[in-house]
């Protein structure tokens, strides 16, 4: 009986899809799925509650780049991160934040595309 209980719990844990606490990304700039003509100078993340952004990485053309984040910034509902050197193409943004009311770590990702300049102006 105990073995069955352990197995059931293991299966329940394996099948669960974690949502990682309850700090959620409400919006971003560039927005998720957006196709922008201008190269963004910052990435802005807006959460449903006060949080601190701990890490931000960009995945572009199979290359992962860590973006410097101000870890000493006070907790807020929005975090603005300067980005430089972006070129046209699709970017996958992976973020990690920690909610300040309950201490839970939240993770997520979204995609945006920088259109080719010649295509953007056409």
């Amino acid at each position, binding site marked *: *009986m*105990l073995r069955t*209980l*352990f197995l*059931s*719990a293991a299966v*329940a*844990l*394996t099948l*669960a*899809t*974690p*949502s*990682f*606490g*309850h700090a959620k990304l409400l919006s971003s700039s560039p927005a998720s799925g957006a196709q922008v003509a201008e190269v963004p100078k910052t990435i802005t993340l807006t959460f449903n509650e006060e949080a*601190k952004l*701990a*890490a931000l990485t960009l995945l572009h053309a199979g290359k992962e780049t*860590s973006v410097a984040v101000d*870890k*000493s910034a006070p*907790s807020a509902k929005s975090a603005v991160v300067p980005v430089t050197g972006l070129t046209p193409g699709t970017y996958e943004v992976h973020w*990690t934040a*920690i*909610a*300040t*009311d*309950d*201490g*839970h*770590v939240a*993770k997520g990702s979204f995609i945006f595309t920088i259109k080719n300049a010649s295509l953007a102006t056409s």
Partner: protein
Amino acid sequence: MQFSAWDVAAIGIKAILYAATFCAAGGVFFLLYSRSLIALDDERRVRWWVGLCAVVAIAASAVRLSIIAGSMGDGFSGTLDGSMVRMVLEAGEARATGMRITGLLLIGAIFLETSCGFIAASLSAFLAATSFAWIGHAWAAGRWSVALLSLHLIGVAFWLGALVPLLLVGQRTDLSSLARIAKRFGDIAVIGVGVLLLAGSFLLATLLRQASDLWNTEYGRFVGGKLLIVAVLTAAAAVNKLRFTPRLQTQDAAAAYGLLRSIRAELLLGGLILIVTAALTSLVGPPALD
């Protein structure tokens, strides 16, 4: 979204932290009501068990902070990243972990073997056991939830935390002493279990929006799994109290064997509950906070 190795590590260390903290606090509570019934040698063994659990809980608290920092940063190097650890501390862990470590250190007063030392250790055990209410879902839900979770945690420490000391003493003592200790434990555990279940039910009511959240949400399904194991554990405890303990009064040696075997099963179930709770409090948020 997939489970990462960090998630598994975070759940594992949290379960160890829960177990060690409740065992340290529960050991103190066990001595609080059974010290007059047990031999001096057994009392010393329980004190050492409490000390060992307190040390493990302090170490687990530190390792857990590193694991959370590592899960936020660049892999293993993140575990040693001071700025990440500071972020974790600033997000409420300083309050809860600070309270817990203070309680666990002061539990050491139990080694003074004086009444003052024992009182200090008992108060510290309350502090350590309730420290988990000072962060997380209950903290985010408001002060009533913190009060309810604190009561729930004290019930857990009184019940589950006393099982190992009961086993340590029960394996060595004679039948009549075991009968007296088991009866005392059973009488206290009834109150502990009652407080635990009542406070847990009210807390659940504050964290769910409606009853259907129990089966319609991921959080509810996790809680449902936990409640199932709690039901089996409560049944095992009831068998101890209603079947084995009365038979012990009649010097039935088979009852002692049955009682100790049942306590081992309760420990396994208790460990499973702590693992499920660690996953519940780490991975999913209650619907009322969405």
